[in-house]
C-alpha cells in the first residue's frame, strides 16, 4: 500500500510533467509566483516557479527515472522494517529535487539544494544502527556543507552585483556586469556544484554514500541529485560564458576528476563502489563538457547517464538482493546462469556506458569528446579519451568478474541465488530500453540520423528573457574529423570490451584481496589514500581542536561559570540559613524590630 502511494505519486508527477512538457513546447516557459517570500532593503524574494525547457527536461528525468526506481524499491525493500520510512524519505527527496529545478530564483534552488542534501543524509544513514553507515551519512552531509557555503557566498555576491536573485533579473543584467565579479560568482557557484556533484576535492563522500540502500544510490547518487551541480552551471551558462577563467577551472576540475576517479575504479572490488567511482568519473566528464562551453552535451550526458547508471545500480541491487546482501565481486561469478534478466540488462548498461556504438552513452560521450577536441585541443581530447577507456575497462571487469566464469561464493549462497521478482526486473527492462534508445534524443549532425540535435534545439528555445536558455555550442569540425574521432574512441572501447573478456575469463586474473596488492595497484586499491589524507589534514586537527575546546572552554570556562553561580548561591544560602533557627522569640524580635523601623522611617 505504501509502495503504491509512493510510486503512484511519482507516476502522477510524471504525467503532470509530460503535460508541462507539452505546454512548454507549445507556448514557451511557464512562470508563476506563489507568494512574496520576504523583502530586505531593495532585495525582494518571491516563492516562484519557472518551468522552462531546461527545468522540464530535468523534471522528466527526475520523475521518470524516479518512478521506475520507486517501483523497483517496492520489491527491493519489501522485507525491510523501515519500508514506510524509506518511501517517505524517497518522496521527500523527489519533492526537494523538483523544487531545486523548478525554482525561478537562486533562493528556491538553494531550498531544494539543502532539501536534497538532507534526504541524501537521511537515506545514506537509512540503516542507522550500523555505525559505519551513520559515519558515511555524516561525511556526506559535512562535505556537502563545504560546497553549500560556496553556493551561499555565490548567492550573496549575486545579490551584491545584480540586486536580485531571480534568474530573469540576473541574466537580464549580464551585459553590464563587472567581469571580475562574475568570475568570483562563477567560482563560488562552482564550489557549490563541486560539493553536490562530487568533484575533486570534494568527491570522497560519494563512494561512502553507497552505505545507503541500492535504490537510493541509483536515484540520488547517480541519476538525479549529483547532477544538480551540472544543472546549476547549465542554468547559469550566461554567467559562466562571461568568464573564461572560471570555465577553465571547471574544465580542469572535471577532467582531473574524470581520470583520477576512473583509475581508482579499476581496483575496487565492491560492486557498488565501482559504480560510485564510475559516477564521479562520468560527472567529471560532464563538467569537462561544461567547461568547454558545451552545456547541451553535458545535459545530454546527464540524461543518458541517468538512464544507464540507474540501470547499472538497480541491476547491481538485483545482484545484491539475489546474493542475500553480498557486495564483493570476488565472491560472485557465473551469475549469468542464475540471473539471466539481470545479466542482460547489466550487459546493456555496461555497453552503454562504455560507448558501444549506437547505444546512448556512445552518442553523449562522443558529443563531449567532439566539443573537447574543438574547444580544448588534442591534448584535452586525449586525456578525456583515456578516462573513457578506463571507464570501459572497469565496467567490463565488473561485468565479466560478476557474471562470467564459475561461481565463487559459499554453498549457502549458491542455494539462495534467485532471479529478482518482476516488480524489480520490469523497471530494469524499461531502463535498459531507455539506455539503448536514449542517445537518439540528440544525435550528431554529421550522421544524419532522425532526431538530429533535437535536444539541443529544444534547450535552445527562448526562456523568460526572450533569449535562448542554453545556447547551442558551435563545433567547427569537418564531418571527416568527427567521424575519425568517433571511430577512434569507439574502436578503443570495443577493443577493451573484447580484450577484457579474455583477461577476466581466466581464474588467474581474478582480483586478489587488498592485503596482497603491491606497488601502484596497492595505492589505487586504497583510493590513493585520499581519505587518509583528508583524515589527517582536516578531521584529526578538528577533533583535536574540539577536544581542546571541550577541555578548556567548555568544562573549565562555560561549566565553571555555571557551576560557580550555583555554588555561590548555595553558599549564600548556608549563611542566611542560620537566621531560620526555628526559635519563635527570634522571629518575634525580628518582626517587632522590623515594624519599629518601618514606623520610624515613615514618621520621622
Amino acid at each position, binding site marked *: 500500500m505504501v509502495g503504491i502511494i509512493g510510486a503512484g505519486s511519482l507516476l502522477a508527477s510524471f504525467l503532470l510533467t509530460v503535460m508541462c512538457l507539452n505546454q512548454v513546447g507549445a507556448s514557451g516557459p511557464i512562470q508563476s509566483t506563489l507568494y512574496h517570500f520576504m523583502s530586505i532593503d531593495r532585495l525582494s524574494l518571491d516563492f516562484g516557479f519557472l518551468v522552462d525547457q531546461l527545468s522540464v527536461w530535468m523534471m522528466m528525468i527526475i520523475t521518470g527515472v524516479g518512478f521506475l526506481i520507486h517501483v523497483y524499491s517496492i520489491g527491493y525493500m519489501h522485507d525491510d522494517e523501515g519500508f514506510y520510512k524509506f518511501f517517505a524519505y524517497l518522496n521527500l527527496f523527489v519533492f526537494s529535487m523538483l523544487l531545486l529545478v523548478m525554482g525561478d530564483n537562486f533562493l528556491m534552488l538553494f531550498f531544494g539544494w539543502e532539501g536534497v542534501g538532507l534526504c541524501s543524509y537521511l537515506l545514506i544513514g537509512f540503516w542507522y544502527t550500523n555505525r559505519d553507515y551513520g559515519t558515511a551519512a555524516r561525511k556526506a552531509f559535512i562535505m556537502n556543507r563545504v560546497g553549500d557555503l560556496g553556493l551561499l557566498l555565490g548567492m550573496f555576491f549575486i545579490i551584491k552585483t545584480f540586486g536580485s536573485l531571480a534568474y530573469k533579473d540576473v541574466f537580464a543584467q549580464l551585459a553590464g556586469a563587472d567581469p571580475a565579479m562574475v568570475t568570483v560568482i562563477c567560482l563560488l557557484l562552482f564550489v557549490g556544484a563541486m560539493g553536490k556533484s562530487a568533484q575533486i576535492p570534494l568527491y570522497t563522500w560519494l563512494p561512502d554514500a553507497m552505505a545507503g540502500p541500492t535504490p537510493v544510490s541509483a536515484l540520488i547518487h547517480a541519476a538525479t541529485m549529483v547532477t544538480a551541480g551540472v544543472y546549476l552551471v547549465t542554468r547559469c551558462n550566461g554567467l559562466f560564458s562571461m568568464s573564461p577563467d572560471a570555465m577553465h577551472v571547471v574544465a580542469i576540475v572535471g577532467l582531473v576528476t574524470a581520470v583520477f576517479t576512473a583509475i581508482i575504479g579499476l581496483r575496487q572490488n565492491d560492486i557498488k563502489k565501482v559504480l560510485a567511482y564510475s559516477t564521479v568519473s562520468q560527472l567529471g566528464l560532464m563538467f569537462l563538457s561544461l567547461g568547454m562551453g558545451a552545456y547541451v552535451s553535458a545535459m545530454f550526458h546527464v540524461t543518458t547517464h541517468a538512464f544507464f547508471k540507474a540501470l547499472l545500480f538497480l541491476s547491481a541491487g538485483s545482484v545484491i538482493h539475489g546474493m542475500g546482501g553480498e557486495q564483493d565481486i570476488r565472491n560472485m561469478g557465473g551469475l549469468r546462469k542464475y540471473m539471466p534478466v539481470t545479466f542482460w540488462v547489466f550487459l546493456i548498461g555496461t555497453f552503454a556506458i562504455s560507448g558501444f556504438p549506437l547505444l546512448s552513452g556512445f552518442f553523449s560521450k562522443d558529443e563531449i569528446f567532439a566539443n573537447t577536441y574543438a574547444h580544448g585541443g588534442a591534448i584535452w581530447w586525449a586525456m578525456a579519451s583515456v578516462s573513457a577507456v578506463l571507464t570501459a575497462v572497469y565496467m567490463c571487469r565488473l561485468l565479466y568478474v560478476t557474471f562470467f566464469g564459475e561461481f565463487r561464493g559459499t554453498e549457502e549462497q549458491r542455494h539462495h541465488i534467485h532471479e529478482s521478482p518482476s516488480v524489480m526486473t520490469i523497471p530494469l527492462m524499461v531502463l535498459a530500453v531507455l539506455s539503448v534508445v536514449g542517445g537518439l534524443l540528440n544525435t550528431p549532425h554529421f550522421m544524419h540520423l532522425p532526431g538530429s540535435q533535437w535536444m539541443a534545439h529544444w534547450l535552445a528555445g527562448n526562456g523568460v528573457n526572450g533569449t535562448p536558455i542554453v545556447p547551442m555550442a558551435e563545433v567547427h569540425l569537418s564531418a571527416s574529423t568527427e567521424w575519425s574521432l568517433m571511430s577512434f574512441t569507439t574502436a578503443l572501447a570495443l577493443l577493451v570490451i573484447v580484450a577484457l573478456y579474455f583477461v577476466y575469463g581466466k581464474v588467474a586474473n581474478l582480483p586478489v584481496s587488498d592485503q596482497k596488492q603491491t606497488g601502484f595497484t596497492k595505492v589505487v586499491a586504497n583510493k590513493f589514500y585520499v581519505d587518509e589524507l583528508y583524515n589527517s589534514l582536516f578531521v584529526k586537527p578538528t577533533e583535536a581542536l574540539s577536544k581542546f575546546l571541550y577541555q578548556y572552554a567548555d568544562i573549565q570556562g562555560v561549566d565553571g561559570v555555571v557551576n560557580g553561580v550555583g555554588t555561590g548561591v548555595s553558599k549564600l544560602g548556608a549563611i542566611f540559613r542560620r537566621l531560620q*533557627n*526555628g*526559635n*519563635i*522569640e527570634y522571629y*518575634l*524580635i525580628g518582626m*517587632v524590630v522590623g515594624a519599629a523601623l518601618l514606623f520610624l522611617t515613615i514618621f520621622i
Partner: protein
Amino acid sequence: MLEIIKTVPIEYYLLYSTVLFCIGVFGVLTRRNAIIVLMCVELMLNAVNLLLAAFSTYLGDAQGQIMVFFIMVVAAAEAAVGLGILVMIYRNTKSTDISLLDRLRN
C-alpha cells in the same frame, strides 16, 4: 458624659495605650509561658481598642467603635483557639513553654 471624657486630653489616651502596647510587646518577647504570651497579646489588642474608642469619641465618628467590637470578637476567637491548642500541647508535653514548639521544625 461626652464632655467628662473630653476633659481628659487625647494625648493621655495616646500615651497610655502606647505604654500598654509596649508592655504587651515586651511580655510577648520575654515570657516563655504560653498563657502569659497569650495574655500579653490580649493586652496589645486592648491597647489598640482603647485608642480606637478614644479617637472615635473625640471625632464623633462611630466607625471606630464598630472596629472595637470587631477586634473583641476576633480576640475572643483567637483566645479560644489559642487556649485549645495550648491544652493539647500541655497534654503532650506537660509544659506550656513555647520554646518547645520548635520541635515541629524538622
